[in-house]
């Protein structure tokens, strides 16, 4: 019996205004660990499979990881889970900054919002005190204004705020939730779910703390981690450039989408304009970090005469840059800033802009339907105009707010072909035709096109010998081979789920703390819980199966685990990955077999569910 307090689960009914809390149980921790895993369990139990994502029946669950706010390095992550309005299936988003830790200091592991408030409200939580406050004066404000207003109103600048902007208020399906001004619960349209509940913001303030069982060992870990920050390649790469450093890396493999995936390579001279080096030299002022982080991958940057903020992510450069034909930092950075303020997922926003540009280019929509705008690739001012429209659902914006697949369904005329989505969610700016393992990962992820469920970086850093040892074939680490990818992705999904359950950053757990045995060494000194690597893998597997069963209940099956037809039909036309295509069907068989799921339907078998203690599902 450890003396570690796991925190409470707070449930708030926005319809009635009632709330109650109870401690997280040890059983919940041992079976689901916390964070994303425990939120998945709550979401499953609170729904039946029939609920509409934007209805009051969709629960919205804020979930801290087991280690969020603790002494563990890089432990500022929290998750928001709900049925996704974009995919209709399991949805969640994950963010850093300082909101999660503050929620934990207030005493909470998870906060579940049910129902819908009659009028716009925000919820203020200070330790045991819970207040549902009027937010009608905040409705219509962007996330930055909301953050400032709430802090002033409460007379406390140390309050942490997670809020939606106009995009979430107007139920844009690609709306996100923002904390600390630029940290996003980005994917799956969680901002729209929050908006559908008339919940403008959640503000937390906590004066408590997080226990620590073995002080000496914990300080040792912190000391080791500091040394890693100087020697580990991953820590160093992200510590200097942050993810913008990936522009060169991906472009050198020819997998950066240009003009909505018509091409996948930015010619070298051009690529330099949007490289990590250029961002660092021209715009970055200093490093920024999330809670307790040794990597400080973020920056505070300024565009002279325009704006300044914390940032910048590779995905935003990709989505608001080459994907829409723009190779210009001031334009990309301005668009990024607007997405933060309006509360839009940069990936979803860039994706739908690229989509509409191509659809217009191909003559599938008329000038009247696009509000008489001129839609051109490489128009540096276009994103600004369209981001505002989609946040207010104005004119063309009403279509764009649906995301590219939602928009395609409304337009019809074969436009679906041009939507780069899986299950309705936008694919990131990494062309899967050049990265087979990643392509499979996108196709099978529970929350639609997603790279973070599997995040198979080991495809590049494990030896062929180790690949053979773990996955039975050396080809698993060959980026152009299909063999062994199923087993690779299954393993990666199970392992990577652990970071989400613990609330630690995936950049921290990419190398030195990737493997379950390494994670166990982090968990024990802090919480007193002793877990074998096999237990941890089991938890990861359980969570992936639980999310899968959630989707099965929502009527998803094998036919939804598919990449856009375009990627099988059209080869990458130029650059280092020229000639490559991808079709996941063969790899899917391998993946389902590795998972113990039915090959025809992709449904977990009864035996597999029993093995994981999920047979009541």
């Amino acid at each position: 019996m450890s003396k570690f307090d796991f925190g409470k689960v707070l449930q708030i009914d926005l319809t009635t205004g009632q709330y109650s809390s109870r401690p997280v149980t040890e059983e919940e921790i041992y079976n689901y660990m916390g964070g994303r895993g425990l939120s998945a369990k709550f979401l499953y139990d609170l729904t039946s499979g029939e609920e509409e994502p934007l209805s009051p029946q969709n629960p919205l669950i804020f979930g801290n990881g087991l280690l969020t706010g603790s002494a563990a390095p890089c432990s500022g992550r929290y998750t928001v889970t709900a049925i996704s309005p974009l995919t209709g299936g399991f949805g969640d988003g994950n963010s850093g900054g300082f909101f999660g830790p503050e929620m934990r200091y207030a005493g909470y592991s998870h906060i579940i919002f049910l129902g819908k408030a009659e009028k716009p409200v925000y919820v203020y939580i200070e330790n045991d005190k819970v207040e549902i406050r009027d937010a009608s004066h905040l409705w219509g404000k962007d996330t930055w204004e909301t953050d400032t207003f709430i802090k002033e109103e409460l007379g406390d600048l140390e309050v942490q705020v997670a809020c939606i902007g106009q995009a979430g208020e107007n139920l844009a399906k690609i709306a996100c939730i923002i904390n600390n001004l630029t940290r996003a619960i980005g994917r799956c349209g969680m901002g729209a779910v929050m908006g559908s509940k008339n919940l403008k913001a959640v503000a937390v303030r906590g004066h408590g703390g997080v226990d620590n069982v073995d002080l000496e060992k914990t300080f040792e870990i912190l000391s080791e981690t500091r040394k890693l920050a100087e020697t580990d390649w991953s820590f160093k790469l992200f510590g200097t450039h942050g993810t913008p450093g990936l522009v060169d890396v991906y472009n050198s493999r020819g997998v950066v989408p240009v003009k909505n995936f018509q091409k996948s390579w930015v010619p070298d001279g051009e690529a330099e304009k949007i490289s990590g080096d250029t961002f660092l030299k021209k715009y970055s002022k200093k490093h920024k970090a999330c809670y307790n982080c040794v990597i400080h991958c973020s920056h505070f940057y300024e565009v002279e005469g325009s704006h300044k903020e914390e940032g910048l992510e590779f995905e935003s450069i990709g989505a608001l840059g080459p994907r829409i034909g723009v190779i210009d930092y001031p334009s990309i950075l301005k668009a990024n800033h607007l997405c933060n303020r309006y509360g839009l997922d940069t990936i979803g926003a860039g994706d739908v802009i690229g989509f509409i540009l191509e659809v217009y280019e191909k003559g599938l929509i008329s000038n009247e339907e696009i509000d008489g705008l001129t839609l051109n690739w490489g128009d540096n001012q276009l994103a600004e105009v369209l981001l505002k429209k989609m946040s207010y659902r104005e004119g063309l914006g009403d279509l764009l707010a649906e995301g590219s697949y939602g928009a395609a369904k409304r337009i019809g005329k074969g436009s679906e072909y041009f939507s780069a989505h899986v299950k309705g969610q936008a694919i990131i700016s990494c062309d899967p035709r050049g990265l087979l393992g990643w392509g499979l990962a996108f196709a099978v992820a529970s929350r639609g096109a997603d790279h973070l469920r599997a995040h198979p970086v080991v495809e590049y850093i494990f030896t062929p010998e180790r690949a053979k040892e773990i996955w039975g074939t050396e080809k698993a680490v060959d980026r152009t081979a299909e063999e062994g990818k199923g087993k690779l992705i299954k393993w990666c999904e199970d392992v990577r789920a652990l970071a989400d359950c613990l609330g630690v950053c995936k950049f921290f757990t990419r190398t030195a703390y990737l493997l379950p045995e390494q994670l166990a060494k982090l968990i024990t000194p802090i919480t007193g819980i002793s877990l074998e690597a096999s237990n941890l893998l089991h938890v990861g597997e359980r969570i992936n199966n639980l999310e899968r069963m959630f989707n099965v209940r929502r009527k998803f099956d094998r036919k939804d685990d598919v990449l856009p037809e375009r990627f099988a039909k059209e080869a990458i036309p130029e650059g280092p990955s020229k000639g490559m295509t991808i079709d996941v069907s063969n790899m899917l068989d391998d993946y389902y077999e590795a998972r113990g799921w039915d090959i025809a339907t992709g449904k977990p078998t009864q035996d597999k569910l029993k093995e994981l203690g999920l047979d009541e599902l």
Partner: protein
Amino acid sequence: MSFNVQFVGPVKDLVEKVVVEYYLPTPITVQELIDFLISRYGTKFEQEIYTKVPPDNVFFYQILINGSNIYRFKGLQTEINTGDKVLISIPLAGG
């Protein structure tokens, strides 16, 4: 005979520019190219290019010829020919 080498990652700061054209007798093996680069750019380059990654101590830098990893061919003994595009780069690392 000439071929291009593109450098991506910290190693690029140790050479004169991102893409360098080398005039060398071809075919030349990848190992021979590395030896040549070390003789040209010195010990800092040598330390950087031979960086190993735990847990398996694989080479940090990946070498691709015309888009394909040399492990698909003969590893360090793979031959580079005239007109080839060689990429020496840090691994792909997430989105």
